[in-house]
C-alpha cells in the first residue's frame, strides 16, 4: 500500500471544460480526495431573460458545441409547453432523428477521440493514427456520418437554425432521407469493427463497482431519448413537472458548478443510467453489443458508461433507419421553405426535457403576456454527475492505493472521463506562445 500519495491534476485532459483531481494520502491515511470543478459560471439562465420566445432556443444552443441540438430541443419543448404550441407527428419524428444524430456524434467523439487513448495507453488520439490507422479512420467516418445526418435534418451539424417552436423552418427531402437511410445501413460494419476493437481492449476498463442511483427518462413506446418521464432505479417514475424533487441542487465549496442529489448522496445520469432503466427497449443489434460486453442491468460500474455509449451508438443508427422508413411510408407532408407556425402568444410556464448524450437535460421557462422570458432554469447533465464522481473517487482511491502513483492518477482520470463530463464549452480561446 502506498503510504504517501500526492496527486494534483490541474485541468484534466480529454474532457470538455476544466476540472481538477486532488488526492492526498499521508502515512496511508486518505486526507483529501476531491473532484473540483473550477470553471466560472456562465449565467445562461439570466442571459435568456428578456428575450423573445422565438429566440431563446438559439441562445441556449450556444451553451454547448457538442449537444447544441439537445439544448435546443429541451428549450423548444419548454417554450411549446409554456405557450401551448403543438407540433406534428412528422416533426416529432424528424426531431427524434436529429437527436439520434447528435447522440451518435457525441458518443463516437467521446469514445474515439477521448476514451480510446486510455485503453491503448497513449496520451491522445494522435499516436493512434499511426498505430491503429484503420480503426481511427473508422471512428472518424462514423463521426462524419453523425454530422451529415445532423446537417441534413437540421440544416447544420451544430448551433442549428432550422429548429423552431412548432417544428422546422425547412425539412429534408424524400431523396435526402433515402440517401441517409442507405448510409446508415452501410455503417453497421463500421460499428461492428469499433465494437470489436473496444472489446479487444476491454480488459483495460477497471473492474470497480459502487452501488448508486441511476436516473433517466423512460417511455412506454421506445428507448427514451426525445420523450419520457423521470425514472429512478431507487424510487421509480415521476412526472417531469416535479423535476426539482429529483435534482435537488446544492452548492459545495470545491466546485463552481451546482451539485444535485435525490434518494442517496448522489446519482448518475447518462448512457449507463438509460441502459440500466430501459435495457429491454434497446434495438436488437444494440442488445447484441451489450451482451458481447456482459453489460446488463443494473450495472454499477461507472467505467461501463463507455460501453453503454457504444451500445447506444448502435441503437440510434438502427432506430434512425426505422424512423426514416416510417417517414417515407407515411409520405412527407409538404411544407413551405420558411415555415412559421401560427402561435398565439400568451403568458405561461413550461418545462422541457430530453436525454442529451450525457443525460437528462431540463429547461424550465416562464414567459409574460408578450412572450418575453421572465425566468429560466436549466438542469445540465454533467452537474448531476459531479457528486457521483466525487463519491466514486472516495470509494475507488482506497482500493487502488497499492498501485504506483501514476497508475492511480490515470485510473482516476479514466473515471472522470468515463462520465464524459462537459464542464463548459463556453470559453475556448487559444492561449499560445511562439516557438523560437
Amino acid at each position, binding site marked *: 500500500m502506498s503510504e504517501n500519495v500526492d496527486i494534483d491534476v490541474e485541468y484534466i485532459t480529454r474532457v470538455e471544460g476544466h476540472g481538477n483531481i486532488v488526492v492526498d494520502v499521508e502515512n496511508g491515511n486518505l486526507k483529501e480526495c476531491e473532484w473540483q470543478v473550477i470553471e466560472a459560471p456562465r449565467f*445562461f439562465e439570466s442571459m435568456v431573460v428578456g428575450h423573445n420566445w422565438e429566440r431563446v432556443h438559439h441562445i441556449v444552443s*450556444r451553451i454547448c*458545441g457538442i449537444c447544441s441540438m439537445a439544448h435546443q430541443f429541451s428549450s423548444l419543448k419548454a417554450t411549446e409547453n409554456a405557450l401551448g404550441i403543438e407540433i406534428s407527428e412528422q416533426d416529432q419524428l424528424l426531431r427524434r432523428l436529429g437527436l439520434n444524430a447528435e447522440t451518435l456524434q457525441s458518443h463516437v467523439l467521446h469514445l474515439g477521440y477521448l476514451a480510446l487513448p486510455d485503453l491503448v495507453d497513449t496520451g*491522445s488520439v494522435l499516436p493512434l493514427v499511426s498505430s491503429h490507422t484503420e480503426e481511427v479512420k473508422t471512428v472518424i467516418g462514423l463521426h462524419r456520418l453523425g454530422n451529415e445526418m445532423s446537417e441534413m435534418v437540421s440544416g447544420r451539424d451544430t448551433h442549428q437554425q432550422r429548429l423552431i417552436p412548432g417544428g422546422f423552418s425547412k425539412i429534408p427531402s424524400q431523396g435526402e432521407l433515402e440517401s441517409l437511410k442507405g448510409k446508415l445501413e452501410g455503417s453497421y460494419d463500421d460499428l461492428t469493427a469499433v465494437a470489436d476493437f473496444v472489446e479487444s481492449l476491454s480488459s483495460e476498463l477497471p473492474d470497480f463497482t459502487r452501488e448508486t442511483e441511476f436516473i433517466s427518462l423512460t417511455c412506454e413506446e421506445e428507448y427514451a431519448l426525445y420523450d419520457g418521464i423521470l425514472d429512478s432505479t431507487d424510487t421509480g417514475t415521476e412526472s417531469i413537472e416535479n423535476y426539482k424533487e429529483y435534482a435537488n441542487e446544492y452548492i459545495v465549496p470545491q466546485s463552481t458548478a451546482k451539485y444535485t442529489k435525490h434518494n442517496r448522496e448522489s446519482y448518475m445520469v447518462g448512457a449507463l443510467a438509460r441502459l440500466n432503466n430501459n435495457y429491454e427497449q434497446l434495438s436488437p443489434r444494440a442488445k447484441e453489443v451489450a451482451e458481447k460486453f456482459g453489460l446488463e442491468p443494473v450495472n454499477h460500474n461507472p467505467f461501463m458508461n463507455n460501453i453503454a455509449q457504444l451500445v447506444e451508438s448502435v441503437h440510434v443508427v438502427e432506430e434512425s433507419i426505422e424512423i426514416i422508413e416510417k417517414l417515407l411510408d407515411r409520405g412527407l407532408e409538404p411544407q413551405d421553405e420558411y415555415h412559421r407556425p401560427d402561435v398565439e402568444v400568451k403568458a405561461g410556464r413550461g418545462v422541457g426535457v430530453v436525454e442529451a448524450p450525457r443525460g437528462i437535460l431540463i429547461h424550465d421557462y416562464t414567459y409574460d403576456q408578450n412572450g418575453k422570458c421572465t425566468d429560466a432554469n436549466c438542469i445540465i447533465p454533467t452537474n448531476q454527475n459531479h457528486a457521483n464522481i466525487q463519491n466514486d473517487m472516495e470509494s475507488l482511491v482506497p482500493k487502488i492505493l497499492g498501485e504506483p502513483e501514476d497508475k492511480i492518477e490515470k485510473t482516476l482520470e479514466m473515471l472522470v472521463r468515463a462520465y464524459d463530463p462537459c464542464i463548459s464549452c*463556453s*470559453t*475556448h480561446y*487559444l*492561449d*499560445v506562445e511562439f516557438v523560437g
Partner: protein
Amino acid sequence: MNSLFLLVEMKGVIGVGNTFKKDDGIGVKLVRKLRGRETSSETRIFDVGLDVIKVLHILKDLDKAIIVDAVRYGGEPGDFVFFSPEEVNSLKGMGSSHESDLLDILELSRELGESPEEVVIMGIEPEDDSHGEEITPTLKERFPELLDKLFEKLESL
C-alpha cells in the same frame, strides 16, 4: 478532395468562438461579415461556433484555409497576427482541454493526411471574454480593419 475532383482550388474561412462571450466571438463575427464580399476564388465560409472538432471535417475538403479565432498571444486588445499552427505551442500543452483543442485538431488533420496545403490562423487579441453578445468597443473600432486584413489575406493565399 472536392477541389481536386472539380479541378478548382477551394479556399475556406473558418470562424471559431462563442458569440455570447464578447470578444471570444470575434472570429465568428468576422467570417459572417465576410459572407457579403465577393472573392476572386472559390471560397466557402464556415461558422463552427464552439464545435471545434468540426474543423477536422471541414479541412479535408479544402486546399487552403484561414481559421479566425480569439487568441491570447500577448498583443494589445484588437491587435492581430497571422501564423501557422507549427509556429506556436499551447501554454497548457498538447492534449489539454479547451485551449489546445484547435491545435490538436490541426495536428490530427495533418496526421491523417487530410490537411490543406496551407493553413493560416488569424489570431485576434481579445480584451474581455465575459458574458455579453457584443464585442468590446476596442474590438468594434478595429473591426473594419480586421475584416479588410482578413479579406486581403484570403485573396493572397
